[in-house]
Structures are given as structure tokens and as C-alpha cells.
């Protein structure tokens, strides 16, 4: 069993490297970088929603928090290594506190959605109205609606003047995504990940088995936030500015849409959904015939109606249907990737 996993991992690495190499032939690295970053952001929600059953309406909060943490720290430190680390830990810590408040208070489902949404709104309102000179952290002005431009961007660790930008930033982001992907893979194979899936399936049962569901959900939530924070920090480096828009509900909505379209309960689905839709949006942005938002709306509605499991599971089952059963384990995994709400529907 472990050998077949190893083979699959190796295949994934090879495929990923080939993709990282070939994609710049098709799309400029500047655009690719942001697609990769969005992929990572989607994966962060895909992990906690698809595998942990936690529907967070405010994943953008952690994304924005990561970006702002990076920008503020970079202005104060003048070097990028520590800010990158902080950008992962601050959102994780914030999520741990928020998660503890929600999960220990037994908030679930729609209430969880409301709280995460409200917290995102509060962050947005606060950051958006911090233009006054009194909102300063160290040397960094929060800037309100303006956002924070002109911070120190990514450099080779220890060498503040060796900037990583352009093509190099793309490769850094792509490798980071690959690393996060394997981290998630490892996590899901570990006992922690398998129990997290158990919690998604039946919280009460897992609790009756003697597992502390509240703590485990909190930890998973924080891990998701850490990944979103990393994506945020990379985004700050790509855009060279952070703005309150990062915290907006629209941003949160997009992350959810990426996951739905790509396929929940898969690792690849959210990444493909994010990159695909973001690129589509980019292409649509270059035409002015039909409104961009309108098309995104139609896509979402059509997916919910006709392909509620998303692209990746659909393609996988198509693949299975045409090439037969590859391995029992794989198909079993695929099937439970997303529970269809059949009870009432």
C-alpha cells in the first residue's frame, strides 16, 4: 500500500515539475504567479471545508491578514524572511483564537458561516477606515482605503538587496504551492487527517470515540488559515501593494466558488478551480462585450445545478468509467470526497 502511494507521489512531482516548466510558454509568468497564489488560497479552504467540513465564509480574512502582516513587518524589518514567517503565524494564531471561540461554543454550520462572515466584515471595516495618522504599527501606516504600497518585497533570505521578482517569484510561488500540496497530502494521510475526515462525516461519533473534536477542528482551522496567510504574503509580493479589498466578501465568495467548481473533497480540485476561473476572469477582463461578473454568476449557478461535485470528481469518474477500476482504494476515496445531500433533496 505504501509503495503505491510512493509511486503516485513521484508521478505527481514529475507532473508538477513539467507543468511548472511548460506553463510559462503559454501564459506570462506575471499572470501565472497570481494563478498559483490563488490555487494555494483555494487549497486552504479546500482543506478545511472539503476534508474538515468547516464552511468558512471568511477565508479572505486570513488571506488579507497574511498580506497585511507581511507588508507591515516588511516595512519595519526591511528584509523579507521574518515577515514571511509572521505572515503564516499571525493568521494561524488569529484563526486558532476565532476557531476556539466558535468550536468550543459549539457553533456549527450556518452560525459558523455568519460568524466568519461577520469577522471578515469587521476586519474590512476596520482596515478600510484606518487612513488616519494614528493607525501606525512601528513605521508602517495602515493607510485605510489606500492600502500599503512600497514595502520591501521578497528577497533571498539574509540578503535584503537580492530581490526575488518576475520569473523568479513565479518559480518560488509554484514550488511553495507544490510544498503546500504535499503538506496537505501528508496531513490527510496522517491519523490527524483521517480523524478530521471522520469529524466531517459525523462529529458526535468521533467525539463518542474519545476524540476532542473542538480542539481538532480548531487546529485544522488554524492550519487552513496558515496556508491562506502564506498565499496572502506571496500575493503582497506579487502585487507590491496590499489593500482592504483583500478582506472583502467578494474575495471570500470567489474562494468558495473556486472550491465548488474545482471539486470539494479533493486536493487538486480547488487549485484547478482557482487557476482556471482566475484565468477566465483575466481573459474576460480584456473584453468589454459581456460583463465579467455576469459570466462568473452564470458559471456558479450552472455548476451548482448540473455539476455540484465539481470538475475534478466528475473527470475522475469519467476516467474511471472509460478506463475501468484502477484501484479499489482510489475509487473508494473518490466516492466519499463529497457527500451529496440526498437526505432531503
Amino acid at each position, binding site marked *: 500500500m505504501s509503495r503505491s502511494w510512493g509511486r503516485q507521489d513521484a508521478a505527481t512531482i514529475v507532473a508538477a515539475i513539467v507543468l511548472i516548466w511548460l506553463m510559462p510558454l503559454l501564459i506570462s509568468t506575471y499572470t501565472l504567479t497570481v494563478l498559483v497564489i490563488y490555487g494555494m488560497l483555494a487549497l486552504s479552504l479546500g482543506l478545511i471545508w472539503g476534508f474538515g467540513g468547516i464552511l468558512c465564509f471568511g477565508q479572505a480574512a486570513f488571506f488579507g491578514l497574511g498580506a497585511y502582516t507581511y507588508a507591515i513587518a516588511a516595512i519595519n524589518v526591511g528584509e523579507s524572511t521574518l515577515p514571511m514567517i509572521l505572515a503564516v503565524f499571525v493568521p494561524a494564531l488569529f484563526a486558532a483564537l476565532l476557531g476556539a471561540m466558535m468550536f468550543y461554543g459549539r457553533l456549527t454550520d450556518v452560525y459558523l458561516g455568519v460568524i466568519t462572515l461577520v469577522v471578515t466584515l469587521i476586519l474590512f471595516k476596520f482596515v478600510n477606515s484606518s487612513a488616519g495618522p494614528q493607525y501606525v504599527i512601528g513605521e508602517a501606516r495602515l493607510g485605510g482605503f489606500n492600502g500599503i504600497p512600497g514595502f520591501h518585497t521578497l528577497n533571498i533570505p539574509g540578503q535584503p538587496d537580492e530581490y526575488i521578482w518576475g520569473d523568479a517569484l513565479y518559480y518560488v510561488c509554484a514550488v511553495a504551492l507544490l510544498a503546500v500540496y504535499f503538506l496537505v497530502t501528508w496531513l490527510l494521510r496522517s491519523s490527524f487527517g483521517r480523524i478530521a475526515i471522520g469529524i466531517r*462525516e459525523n462529529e458526535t*461519533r468521533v467525539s463518542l470515540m474519545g476524540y476532542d473534536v473542538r480542539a481538532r477542528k480548531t487546529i485544522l482551522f488554524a492550519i487552513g488559515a496558515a496556508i491562506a496567510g502564506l498565499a496572502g504574503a506571496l500575493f503582497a509580493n506579487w502585487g507590491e501593494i496590499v489593500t482592504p479589498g483583500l478582506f472583502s466578501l467578494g474575495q471570500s465568495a470567489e474562494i468558495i466558488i473556486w472550491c465548488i467548481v474545482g471539486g470539494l473533497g479533493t486536493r487538486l480540485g480547488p487549485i484547478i478551480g482557482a487557476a482556471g476561473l482566475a484565468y477566465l476572469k483575466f481573459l474576460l477582463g480584456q473584453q468589454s462585450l459581456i460583463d465579467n461578473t455576469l459570466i462568473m454568476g452564470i458559471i456558479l449557478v450552472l455548476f451548482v445545478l448540473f455539476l455540484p461535485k465539481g470538475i475534478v470528481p466528475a473527470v475522475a469518474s469519467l476516467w474511471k468509467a472509460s478506463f475501468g477500476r484502477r484501484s479499489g482504494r482510489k475509487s473508494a476515496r473518490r466516492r466519499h470526497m463529497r457527500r451529496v445531500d440526498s437526505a432531503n433533496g
Partner: protein
Amino acid sequence: MAETVLETTGLTMRFGGVVATDNVNFSLKARELRCLIGPNGAGKSTFFKCITGLLTPSEGQVFMRNQETTGWHPHEVASLGVGIKTQVPNVMDGLTVVENIWMAARRFMPSKEASDKAQDVIERLALGSIAKAELGRLAHGERQRVELGLVVAADPWLVLLDEPAAGMTAGDVDRMSAIIDEMTRTAAVVIVEHDMQFIRSIASTVTVFHQGAILMEDHVDKVMADPIVRNVYLGKKA
């Protein structure tokens, strides 16, 4: 000689003005098998929930192996080595039987041993033919049996079962009795049950609940012969 593994003193649970269980003193010895019976609303399920931590009692205390567990969370109770099965089948529908049982075992042992344990439980409960099936696709009886497997896999010293035989076929019930019989070799077992047929078949001591309090406590045959119980339990039929 045998130690007391479960004890409640003055356990009372009120919902608003309604008293669901009233000053219940209950005790159970190691490897004892006990059934809780009573008409609907007698308070046996509330009592069960208070012990398992699903509810926090308004008054009174719960002890397990002399450890006070009043107001503990279910997961803390379970961590002591208490196996719990709730009234509705509580299983992980999207996962396979093996995965379900592995997860129960994993709580008390490393991953590899848990896999071996899961295989062992599957053999003991004769679940081999459905081991790779998803729970959501199994029949009700099978799901109940798997849930017992989840309880067994944790090697508990105290097992709390809420209506394990509900909705099962005769064949299922026989198998269930056998499993419970096997459990009592290592654990004390409390069963909340309606099905008198089933209670007779496992022939245990019975505690009768009525209006939130314990009415009597004796062997099943004597209890069933008791006119007061018959009156309470069977209502107008008596």
C-alpha cells in the same frame, strides 16, 4: 469483590419545570450486564445522556471507577475507556467499515496497531464481507453492528448502549446478543432497551425507570412477573 465501575448519586435532570430524572442512585459492578427499561418518558434516555456527557445533570454526581465525571464532555468520558452507542446509528457514512473501526481503535493505540485491531474486530463481528463498503450504503442492521464494532475496537471496560436492537431483524438480534455476551467478558454493559424479547434473550438484571425514578431492580424474569411493573410498563393492557 468486584469493584464498582459506574455510580450515580442523587442524579437529577430538569428541563424548565419538567423533572426528567429525579434523584437517581445507581451503581454497576465490573463485568455486570444491566438493562434499563421503562415506558416512554420514564427518564432512562435522559439518565443515559447524563452519564455519557451528552447532557450535564442539574444535580447529583456521576462516578466512573471512582473518578467523578459529572459534567464531562462525551469525548472525555470516552477517553476513560467507556464505549458508547447512541440511539440513532451514529457512524461515519462516507467512510468504509474498516476506516470507521480503525478510527475507533486509533484513539487508544498507534496507527499500525489500530489497523490490526480493526481487522481483528471485523473478524470477530463477522463483517469481513462488507469491510470495504461505505457505511452509507449498508442496511440498518449492518450499521448497528458496525457501531458495536466501533465500541468493541476501543477495548472498553464499560459499555453504554442505547437501544442497540431497535429496528433489527430476528437474525440481527441473535447476532447482537452474542456480541453483547462476548463484551461482558471484559466489560460492564448498560443497555437501554424497549425490546423485551431481546432483554430476555440476554437474561440480565433489569432496572426499571418510572417517572424519572428507579421503580425496582431485579432479574428480568422477576421484574416481568411483578404486577406493578406490568401495570406501569404495559399500561392499560395490565
